[in-house]
């Protein structure tokens, strides 16, 4: 099966079941928005898909190969890049070093240089701040840096945890627009986990709505946005 297939997926935090037999499919090249309030298990889902946490039961495959039982660094090297919540950058390092981190293990140094140049082209503000330490960046710039670092690794499956967290509305729109452009340009498969349902569903092909660890609805993003019951109960607008 092509793409990302999650089936019968359950994850426990000690005695608490964070995700309860979740199943959904994202076809390769699609963008999926996983929507849910705080505590719905969205972040846990991404952490389990990227190897940071082991699920209790269930399967998760990417292009037919299991994601489970692998270390995050090995998954990253295979193109599964998780940009963890908010501003996943290393504040003690410079912008340049943060970007370099995504490519130091790659053999093809020419392509690392090319990918880095593309990121700077995409986010000129990062280019202007290459030698600054990352903790001097604004929230939006940090998000750009985190995504940029993942791009230097030449991702195939991009897992984004709340890219809108703590950002101003205008910046959120920019970030989502960029993500949408990128995935069309690079043919990326993207899973965005978001509380900001509107912005995420607007660019998504499919939507997955979660509540307290369980799947509430899954379908085409457009259909979910237009469903009055879902809108009232889970989408908050």
């Amino acid at each position: 099966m092509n793409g990302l297939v999650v089936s019968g997926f359950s994850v426990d935090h000690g005695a608490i079941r964070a995700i309860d037999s979740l199943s959904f499919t994202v076809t390769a090249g699609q963008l999926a928005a996983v929507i849910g309030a705080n505590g719905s298990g969205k972040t846990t889902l991404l952490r389990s898909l990227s190897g940071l946490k082991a699920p209790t039961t269930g399967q998760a495959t990417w292009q037919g190969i299991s994601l489970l039982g692998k270390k995050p660094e090995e998954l990253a090297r295979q193109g599964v890049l998780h940009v963890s919540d908010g501003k996943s950058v290393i504040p003690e390092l410079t912008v340049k070093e943060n970007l370099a981190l995504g490519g130091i293990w790659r053999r093809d140094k020419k392509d690392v240089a090319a990918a880095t140049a593309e990121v700077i082209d995409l986010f000129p503000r990062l280019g202007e701040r290459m030698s600054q330490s990352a903790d001097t960046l604004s929230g939006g710039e940090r998000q750009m840096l985190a995504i940029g670092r993942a791009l230097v690794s030449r991702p195939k499956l991009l897992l984004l945890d709340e890219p809108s967290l703590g950002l101003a509305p205008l910046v959120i729109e920019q970030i989502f627009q960029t993500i949408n452009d990128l995935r069309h340009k690079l043919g990326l498969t993207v899973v965005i986990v978001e509380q900001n349902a509107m912005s995420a569903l607007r660019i998504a092909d499919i939507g997955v709505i979660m509540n307290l660890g369980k799947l509430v609805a899954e379908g085409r993003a457009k259909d979910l946005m237009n469903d009055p019951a879902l809108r009232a109960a889970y989408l908050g607008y």
Partner: protein
Amino acid sequence: MDQLISAILIGLSQGAIYSLMALALVLVFRSTRVINFAQAGQAVVSTYIGWEVVTRTGNYWLALPIAAIAGAIVGAAVESFLMRPLSKRASKGAIAPVASVILTLGLLGVLHSGAAIIWKGDQKLLESPVSAMGITVGETVYPFSQTDFLIIGTALLVMLTFSFIFQKTNLGLALRASAFQPEIARLSGVRVDRIRAIGWAFAGAAGAIAGVLVTPGSALSPNSLDLLLVFGFVAAVIGGLESLIGAALGGILLGLTLSFVGLYIGTSLTFVVPFVILILVLLIKPSGLIGGRKSRNA
């Protein structure tokens, strides 16, 4: 004036050794949050290996790198075969936050007694390859020797090498990233476990070099580097425990202080002064005199 220059040079030479030991402790602490008491044991075993080389070949210059390599191997092995499994097994309960420190204390005992079994408890001499006699200029004999210059030069070389590796190479970037934010480093594709073992290897090498440099001034026995470990801790704490530059400067500061105290006040105080400094720094500025958040950059 002559006395002042002597005090400074001796302070620098002793301080350089403390700096190396402090570097070893800081490298381990900032990458794995472990206070490594076994560092004295690792260093003494490495120094014995250096002593074996000198005894068999008569070549101190060969002993120095071989002891450093031995120290690196021991360091990487301690991280890979003891600390890493420990962090997985003892991750819960009351023992979790202290398990690693207790393990390093246990390991220190094992290395001490292991060294005593293999090399016996008697004192072994490790001769300096250059003169340890005071340098004579005109009619004045200064209390510092060529050995002191050897120590300062070697320590400087080690520090410059470390600084180059950490600031200018991909390995250094991976070492810093793994120390600062291991999870983000992993998610970026850095093999953090392997990088940590390399960090411990660098620490082991620095401790071994400190051991081989300090031993000609006294003698080698299973416990002979314990005081150096303590002085290394004081230097590391002065430097804020997380900064490599802080560790280097902390060592030099401690060396100079002890040298001045010894020269102008009396040598009877040199054993109490480091501990007083340690307590004062912890009480007044626990983040270190040179430390602080910014220091993690270096």
